[in-house]
C-alpha cells in the first residue's frame, strides 16, 4: 500500500532532483550576460531554479496534511500495485530484450508471455497472436513504410 502522501513526496523529490541536475549542468554553459548576448546556460538555469522551488513547495504541501490529501489517504492499494507491476515489469523486460533479441522476436515473446503465463489465453491462441504481432509489425513497418526496426544482436550473429 502506498499513501498519497508518500507518492506526493516521491514525485516532488523526483522533480526536485531533476531541477538540481538541470541547474548544475547548465552552469557549465555559463549563466548571465556575455558579448554574444544571454549565455546558453541562463535559460535552463532559471527553469532549473523554478523546478527546484516548485518541487520544494509541493514537498512541503505533501508533508503538511491539507484537506486535499486527507481526502484520498491511499493512492495505490496492494491489488492495484500488483496490477501495475503486472503491466510494467513485463514491458520493461521486453524493452530490455530488444537490443539482444530484436524488435520482432522480443515483441512476439512479450505477447506470448503476458497472454499464456497468467493463463489469459490458451497456449495455441497466444502463440497465434504472438506470430500475428510480429508479422503485422513486419508488414506495416519494414514493407509499407520502409522503417527498419532493430533485428537484434542474435539475428546479426546469424547473419540477418
Amino acid at each position: 500500500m502506498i499513501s498519497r502522501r508518500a507518492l506526493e513526496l516521491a514525485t516532488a523529490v523526483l522533480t526536485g532532483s531533476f531541477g538540481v541536475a538541470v541547474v548544475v549542468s547548465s552552469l557549465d554553459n555559463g549563466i548571465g550576460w556575455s558579448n554574444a548576448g544571454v549565455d546558453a546556460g541562463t535559460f535552463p538555469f532559471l527553469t532549473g531554479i523554478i523546478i527546484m522551488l516548485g518541487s520544494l513547495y509541493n514537498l512541503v504541501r505533501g508533508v503538511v496534511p491539507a484537506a486535499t490529501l486527507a481526502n484520498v489517504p491511499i493512492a495505490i492499494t496492494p491489488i492495484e500495485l500488483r496490477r501495475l507491476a503486472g503491466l510494467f515489469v513485463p514491458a520493461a523486460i521486453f524493452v530490455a530484450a530488444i537490443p539482444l533479441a530484436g524488435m520482432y522476436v522480443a515483441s512476439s515473446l512479450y505477447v506470448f508471455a503476458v497472454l499464456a503465463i497468467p493463463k489469459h489465453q490458451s497456449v495455441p491462441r497466444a502463440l497465434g497472436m504472438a506470430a500475428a504481432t510480429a508479422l503485422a509489425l513486419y508488414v506495416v513497418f519494414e514493407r509499407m513504410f520502409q522503417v527498419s526496426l532493430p533485428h537484434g544482436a542474435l539475428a546479426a550473429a546469424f547473419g540477418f
Partner: protein
Amino acid sequence: MDNLHELMHGFNIAITVPHLALMVIGVLLGILVGVLPGLGAPNGVSLLLPLTFGMQPVSAIILLSSMYWGALFGGSVTSILFNIPGEPSSVATTFDGYPMARDGRPTTALATAFGSAAFGALIGVILITFLASWVAQVALAFGPAEYFAVYFLAFASFVGMGGAAPIKTVVALAIGFAIAAIGIDTVSGSVRLTMGVDELVKGVNFVVAVMGLFGIGELLVAVEEEFHARAASSKIDWREVFRAVGRLPRHSVALLRSAAIGCWMGITPGGPTAASFMSYGIARRFSRRGRYFGTGEVEGIISPETADHAAGTSALLPMLALGIPGSATAAVMMGGLMIWGLNPGPMLFVDQKDFVWGLIASMYVGNIVAVALVLLTVPVFAALMRIPFVIIAPLIVIICVVGAYSVSNSYLDVVMMLGFGIVGYLFKKLFYPLAPLVLAIVIGDKAEDAFRQSMLMSKGSLGIFFANKLVTCLIVAGIALLLLPLVLQLARLLRKPAPSTDETTAQKRAQETAREKVII
C-alpha cells in the same frame, strides 16, 4: 470576403479523391485511438507523424487533423455506451450520456452527442476562418519581444486558468522547458544538459515524451481499475438519429453558450478537457432542469460535447496564426509542421496559402466525414471494447515502443519513453497537468530564442518588454494570470477568517475533488 475566396480555393484542395481518402483513414484511425483506453489523440497523432514525412504537408496535416476529429468523436462513444471515457476530454460526457444509454436510449444519447459535437466544431472552424488570418496579420508586425510576450501569456494562462494546482503547473512547464533545452543550443551552438550522455546531443523528441506520458502513463492508470465493459445496446436506430438531431435547436442557448466556452478555452490554452468540465458545470448551474443532471439529461450531454469539440477545433487557431498550440494534440501537430519544414505562425498565411486554407477547408469536410463514419461504425468499435484489456494492453505497449523507436531509430528513445511513462503515471495520479509539459517541450526553444533575441536588441535590458503598448499589455496580462490563483486564495482567506467547522472543510474537500477531476 477575401477569406471566403481563399476558403473556396481551400475546398478545391481539400475535396479531391486522395484527400477525402486520407480523411476517411484519419477519422477511422482516430476513432480507434479514441475508443481504446490508453491511446489518445496526442499519441495517435504522434504515432502517425513518422509516416507523414514523405507526404505533401497539406496532405499530412489533413490526415493528422482528421485523426484528431476522429479521436474526439471516438472518446464519446465509449463514454456513452460503456461509461469508460476513451479520452480525458470526454469524462464529462459520461455523467449524463451513460445514464441515458442505460435507460434504453443509446441512439438518442449518441446522436445528441455527435450533433452537438458537430455544432461545436463548426463554430470553432468558422471562428478560425474569419479570425485566423486577421490574427496572423496583426502578428506579422511582431518582433521577438512581442513573440516572447505572447508565449509568456500562453504559459501564464495555463497556470491561471488550467484548473490544476498552480505550482504543479509551473513545475510541469519548467520541466518541459528544461527538456526542450537538452541538446545543441540553436543560438550559440554549444551542447546543453546532456549530463554526460552523448546520444542526447540530438535532444529529446516530443514524440518520445508523448508516447510515454500519454501512452504508457495512461495505460498504467487504466490497468489499476479492472474494466467492466458492460455495454448499453449499441444498435443504431436511424430514424431516432434524425429525430434527436432535430430536437437540438430547442437547446440553442446551451449550444451557443457551450460553443463560446469551448472556443475561449481552446484559444487560450485551457484545452478541451477543462472546457468540457467547465461547460458542464455552468450548464448544471443555469439550466432549469439542473437538479436532474446526472440522470440522463439532454443538456448534460450537449454542454460538454459542444465545448469539447469547439475547444479541440479552435485550439488550432493560435497554432496556425501565432505558432502557439492550444492543446497537447495541437502541440504535436505543430511539431509535425516544423518537421515538414513549415514555420508555424503568421508567415504561413503569406507563404503557404494552399496549406492553411486547404487545412481550414478540410476541417469543414473532415468533421462531416467524422460524424457520418462514427455513426456507421458504432457497432464495430463497440464490439472492439469487448476484447479483454489484457490483450489490448501489450499491443499498446508494443505500439508505443515501436513509435518511440521509429522517430530517429534510437534505442535510447525507447528507454526514455518508458521513463516518461512512469512520470506520466505519477503526474496523472497526483494531478500534475501533462498538456503544459508537452507544450513547453515543443515550443520551449522558440520561446527561449525570442527572449534571447529581445535581450540582444535591448542590450540586456528588460525594458524592451515594456517598450510599447502591445508588449506591455501582453506582459501585464500574463503577470495578472500568473498571480490570479494567489489572489483568489488570498480573497478566500480574507472572506473566511477561520473555516474550521466540519461542514466547511467537507465543502472545501468536495470543491477540491471537483477541481482535481477537471484536470485528469
